Structures are given as structure tokens and as C-alpha cells.
């Protein structure tokens, strides 16, 4: 398959503005935590799904607040509202 010219990193392209970064982060969270191939059953460690996602959300709320001091209330509310 030929390399696709459009497959750059989202991280690089979205540094244009804070708003774009916030939206990109939300899109990332939505996809990584709710999308993708989900593996269930005994080959998945029992600890993996729930604990990590809960941990993820609390850390994301904390880190976006640090990342975006100009506008933390909106983003924190959005990230916190995600489940």
C-alpha cells in the first residue's frame, strides 16, 4: 500500500490554536476510550478496562487543567462529563 500523504500526526497539525487542541483532545479521548477493538474474556486482565479508564479520566481532567490554564472550566467540565 502506498503511504498516504494525509496521515500526519494529529498532534502536530493541531497546534494551531488552543481551541483546536481542546477539540482534538476530546476527539482523542472519545476514540481511545470508547472506540477501537475491545477485548473481553479471560485473556484480558480483569484490572485492565475499568481501573485504567477511571484513572485515565481523572488524570486527563487534571492534565488538561494544567495544559489549558486560559480556559480550564470548559474543558474540565467536558472531560469530566465524558463517560
Amino acid at each position, binding site marked *: 500500500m502506498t503511504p498516504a500523504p494525509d496521515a500526519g500526526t494529529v498532534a502536530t497539525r493541531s497546534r494551531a490554536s488552543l481551541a*483546536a487542541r481542546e477539540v482534538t483532545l476530546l476527539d482523542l*479521548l472519545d476514540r*481511545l476510550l470508547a*472506540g477501537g*477493538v475491545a477485548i473481553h474474556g479471560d485473556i484480558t486482565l480483569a484490572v485492565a*478496562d475499568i481501573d485504567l479508564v477511571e*484513572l485515565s479520566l481523572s488524570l486527563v481532567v487534571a492534565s488538561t487543567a494544567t495544559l489549558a490554564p486560559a480556559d480550564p472550566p470548559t474543558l474540565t467540565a467536558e472531560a469530566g462529563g465524558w463517560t
Partner: protein
Amino acid sequence: MDVSVYLYAITDPLAQAPGLEGLQSAPVRPLRTATLAALVSTIDRRAGIGSTADMWSHELVVEELMAENDVLPARFGTLLDDDDSARRLLAERETEFHAALDRVAGAYELSLRVMVPVPEERPSWEPGAGAAYLRAAKRRTQLADDVSRQVRRALGWLARASVIRSGRDAAHLLESAWLIDRERLSEFRERAARLNDEIDDAELVCTGPWPPYSFVGAEGPG
């Protein structure tokens, strides 16, 4: 060390491992069966994962992989006991994974968010406040329906599949994901930008290309 195998994506067995390091700076390696490969790295479970940096690590590994291959991105935080578990997973769900790879072959996911201005919330006890609230809620529903229809009409024919759902909060009217052939990405974005200019009451924000996270479930889109 309490070691597990962290799963990034499932892909073609001929895929080369990305040069990037994965979570916890561990090298990413392919585990292959005859017809599939799982991209994994070894991870210390006790160290914990879940920071934004961890999520970007996961994403960047999958993005690098998807530049050259069709991929099924794994959900963040998928841990397997060991390499054999990963290979067993590929064998047990081979048919499902192949069907999913066929569905997303040659395509990427784009996100389109419909944002609306949020009026400042001032609790009001004046007469008529309840009716005003209901009117506003009705306007919002109407706007969501209208924009949803416009978006489908303008962009639907460009997509192999799409998912549109209500936004998470007041500012996000709609969230949507679109599975787009690689050669149509630019056209989709241009048309989305044009549509954004035409719509007065809302703003369309497009991001991507993403790995096809929203289109790899066993049940198809959704």
C-alpha cells in the same frame, strides 16, 4: 515487575513495526500469526498508565502504522497476559478481525463536531422563565435536526460509513465520525469547510485523519 503486553492495533502480518517507542518508552513489536499481526509492547502494570501522554503514545504508534497499513486500533488500556495470549486472540477472532479490516481497508476516520455558542446561564424565577427554557430546548433540537440533515446531504455520499450522535454538553450540539477513502479526505474537508461557511448558527470542527476507532466494532459502525 508485574509485566503485561499492551495492545495498540491489529493489522496485516507483513506490517513493519513502527520505529516509535510505545508506552513507558518500550519498543513496539509485532506478534504474528499466518494472517494477522498484533502490535504490542511490554508494560509494567504496576507503574500505571492513563496520562494524556500515554494516550498520545498509543495514538502516535497507531498513526504511524496506519500511514502504510490498514489497521484495527485497539481501545486504550487493553492488556494481555503475555505474547501467547495475544497470538491466541488473533487466532480465536481471526474471521471477525479480517472482516473488520476489509471494512476499513484504504480508509481513515474523520471527526466532525458541531459546536454552538452557550448562552450564559442565569437562573431566573421571573414569570415565563420555564416557557423560555422550553422554547430554547426546542430550538436546539430543531437546530440539531437541521444541521444533521445538512451534513448528511452535503457529506454523506463521500463516506463509506458514518455515525452521528448528540453532543456531550451544551456547547457540543452533534458529534460525528466518518469513514472516508484516503483519496477523498481533502474533498471531505473542503466540503465540510464550505458547509461551515453556509451554516450561521453553528460551527463545524473537523479533525483527523484518525485510525478508524469508530468503525472496528464487531457490530460495525457505532
